[in-house]
């Protein structure tokens, strides 16, 4: 039975022995399985001749006749033309989502604030791995703190709230400070050196640059 299907699928294949053996019964079996819709002309040719050229034509014929009994595709002329009379809609007011609008405005305000600060003083680009010297004014001390020098181990980009993390050794103790990049307390910033690092956050330096580690 399977061999019949195989030769139906591919043209030009030889019939197997099993078909010839069960040639007589194949017709009735197929009729039983496939129903009366199929043209059995091809089968008759197969069963009588065995390996013959008519097998091809029969196979093709059978394939052609093996279309399903579904109706041919319905015409596309079923699109509904509005038979109802025209309804007049009022002019459509485009309504934007308010939270999106608000976010857009906040974005613009943020960028404006950043530009304003950048116009006032020069802030160099800061990446992790840079060695930086800062001059920070501390109002509690009432005088300028001597410049802080350290390595940048992390940066966080958040518009006006961008921060960077500086690690330095102070009197034998490792100190990490987080500074807002656009803080008015930072009077001057200078990049001394750029170290090659393969990471965005250099937290592994906490173990390496730690004089207090036992």
């Amino acid at each position, binding site marked *: 039975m399977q061999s019949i299907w195989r030769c139906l699928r591919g043209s030009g294949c030889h019939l197997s022995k099993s078909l010839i053996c069960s040639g007589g019964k194949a017709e009735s079996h197929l009729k039983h399985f496939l129903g009366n819709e199929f043209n059995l002309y091809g089968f008759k040719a197969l069963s009588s001749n065995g390996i013959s050229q008519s097998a091809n034509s029969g196979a093709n014929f059978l394939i052609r006749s093996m279309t399903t009994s579904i109706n041919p595709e319905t015409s596309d002329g079923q699109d509904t033309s509005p038979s109802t009379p025209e309804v007049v809609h009022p002019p459509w007011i485009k309504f934007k989502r308010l939270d999106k609008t608000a976010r857009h405005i906040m974005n613009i305000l943020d960028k404006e604030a950043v530009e304003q600060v950048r116009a006032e003083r020069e802030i160099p680009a800061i990446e992790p791995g840079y060695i930086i010297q800062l001059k*920070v004014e*501390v*109002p*509690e*001390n009432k005088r300028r703190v001597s410049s802080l020098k350290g390595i940048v181990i992390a940066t966080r980009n958040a518009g006006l709230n961008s*921060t960077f993390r500086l690690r330095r050794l*102070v*009197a*034998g*103790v*490792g*100190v*990490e*400070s*987080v*500074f*807002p990049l656009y*803080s008015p*307390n930072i009077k001057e910033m200078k990049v001394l050196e750029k170290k090659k690092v393969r990471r965005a956050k250099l937290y592994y330096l*906490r173990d390496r640059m*730690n004089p*207090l580690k036992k």
Partner: protein
Amino acid sequence: MIQPQTLLNVADNSGARELMCIRIIGAGNPRYAHIGDVIVAVIKEAVPNMPLERSEVIRAVIVRTCKELKRDNGIIIRYDDNAAVVIDQEGNPKGTRVFGAIPLELRQLNFTKIVSLAPEVL
């Protein structure tokens, strides 16, 4: 964030090396102590031949924590260790020298002697 059983380094030359926090001084049963809080501690390790000895109960003020200290101007400071300075009942340090960096907040909390002895005030 210092709590009982926390081991602290000692940042002065009073004779103690390591303290263990027993109790946090303050009203309302504080859970954690931060920079500037006074704690009751027991000396776990001491330098020999000094006035302070091992397993003595003393008071200390915390000067450095691994937990970040936030300031109003947006600067955050984080030290690499937890350290304290041994003090007496009035708040004066028992040692004569202070080691390491001390934050500015201690000045507002009336530990001016410690701040003046500090090699580096952050």
